[in-house]
């Protein structure tokens, strides 16, 4: 059954009555994208412009894996220890753990790699300055994908 006028109309009615910020559906040959007036970050979230909505809501009690690192050109590269999703903040809306130019101590949390509901917080392997952030917030990364480059203090 192709999506008919009926279905579209019902979605519009529901959207007007509901308190939903945004709806984005694709069925058959129809794409529906509705954004409520006054809706803010959520819209941006699902349009993939800035920080996605997904919340690293809880960290688990599994010990974080030590991040794999690789040193090149005076900077230490922090890579993803597993496939997963790269999150720069502890929770959505929260400020990022760190940013370019930021200084970190050895062990300072850099980011979260989320894999199948498991939140893996990656600590900085060295004290130093973040010179590059190599992945986008929310990006799907693979094992070994570079995430951060940190110039160690005194190097």
């Amino acid at each position, binding site marked *: *059954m192709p*999506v*008919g006028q*009926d*279905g*579209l109309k*019902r*979605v519009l009615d*529901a*959207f007007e009555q*509901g308190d*939903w*910020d945004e*709806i*984005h*559906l*694709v*069925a*058959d040959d*129809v794409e*529906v994208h509705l954004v409520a007036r006054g809706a803010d970050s959520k819209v941006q*979230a*699902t349009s*993939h412009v800035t920080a*996605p*909505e*997904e*919340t690293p809501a809880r960290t688990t009690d*599994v*010990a974080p*894996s030590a991040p794999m690192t690789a040193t090149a050109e005076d900077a230490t590269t922090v890579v993803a220890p*597993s*496939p*997963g*999703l790269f999150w720069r903040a502890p929770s959505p809306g929260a400020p990022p753990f760190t940013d370019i130019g930021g200084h970190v101590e050895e062990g300072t949390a850099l980011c979260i790699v*989320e*894999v*199948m*509901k*498991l939140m893996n917080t990656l600590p900085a392997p060295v004290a130093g300055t973040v010179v590059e952030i190599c992945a986008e917030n*929310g990006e*799907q990364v693979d094992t070994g994908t570079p995430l951060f480059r940190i110039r160690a203090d005194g190097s």
Partner: protein
Amino acid sequence: MVQRVLVANRGEIAMRVVRACFDEGVTSVLAASEADLDSLPARVADEVVQIGPASATASYLDVGAVISAALLTGCDAVHPGYGFLSEQPELVEQCARHGITFVGPSAESIRRGGDKIAARELARGLDIPLGAGSDAIDTVEEAADLAARVGYPVLLKAAAGGGGRGMRRVDAPAQLADAVVRARAEAQSAFGDGRLYIEHYVEHARHVEVQVLADALGTTVHLGDRDCSYQRRYQKLVEEAPASAVPEELRRRIGEAAVALISALDYVGAGTVEFLVDVDRDTFSFLEVNTRVQVEHPVTEMVTGVDIVREQLRIAAGKPLSFAQGDVRVSGHAIEFRINAESPDRGFVPSPGELRVWRPPVGTDVRVDSHCFAGYRVPPHYDSLLGKLICRGDTRDEALDLAARALDAFDVAGVDTTLPLHRELVRHPDVRGHRITTRWVEESFLPLWTADRARTARAERAATP
């Protein structure tokens, strides 16, 4: 009317619901996130609607997305599967508001059954045993009184606590006074709140649950029990039906308690009532109600022949159950193994990636519920369940023998899985002897198995030039 069902879930349970729709002759419309558009249920369902990005909060957990998807595609019903929005009263209410049938109980039943405190109150009113416990204690004398009443060993717990902190086991009255003082100090320093309470410490427990189905015409039946004592960090790994290690008389009373509770909830749909059985005392206590179909429902299907998901669809359509309590016969024994994309050798870290090989075993009494196929990329966004292997035998021993062979024949490559663990587990003397309690996997099985695996791995490395 239930003619077009929006399947608001993913993975193996989406496949299961799509299949039940096919069996019932109704159209299935899969609500899929962007990450699941190429998944097997998306290929097998009659239609597909994309409800949002990979992130579950913006797709599978978004009530607005699910409701609008149902409206857009003209669905008259929504099946929520398990997890995600399956126990979310808001989805039920929104369905009602838009004239869509929710395949499950009412919002009210979900609220009263799903909330642990409310459910415990209800159970108390029905004289269903609750975990032996106490209100906060003030003095050592009060503690001694209560401890004597609930029976040693007891557990002192911080009222404000959690995660094991401030918890203290006491085996005999002589140790009680000292333990109360220390536990209170610990609780005070940890939580700024020194209040304690006392519970009987169940040393050997089994997790037993009862599968119930209730139609909208007032018929409630139970389909026997399951034993889900194989757990790691409160996650079930293996489930069996029936719970044949538990004495018959106790199981009868547990079944009655489950039906009483469900009936008191004015429940309509499939539900499970969970209990903890104290193996040493032959007593049971109520844990909670699950107001949805459960991961482990196939073991019950295998021993009763009842198709629980089809009955869910029938119930939602207002039809009577297709059988009566008197028709239910539990025949043989079934056991289910959860095949997770996890590395048991590395602390069970998830292992997404591409399934280079996915070759499940085939056999008459072997059932594999899964959404996987060779070449499937297991996405990192969702949980790690790849599928379930269920084996049935006329006896428990036959089921275990069959399972051992089926697990050996189950061929997966590309991601790590829990299969190697299950292959050892199914042959363990404690499993064969049916001597499993809820702490067995973590306290008895895993430490030895992990050490063994590490030793084997070292030996293999040493043997490699």
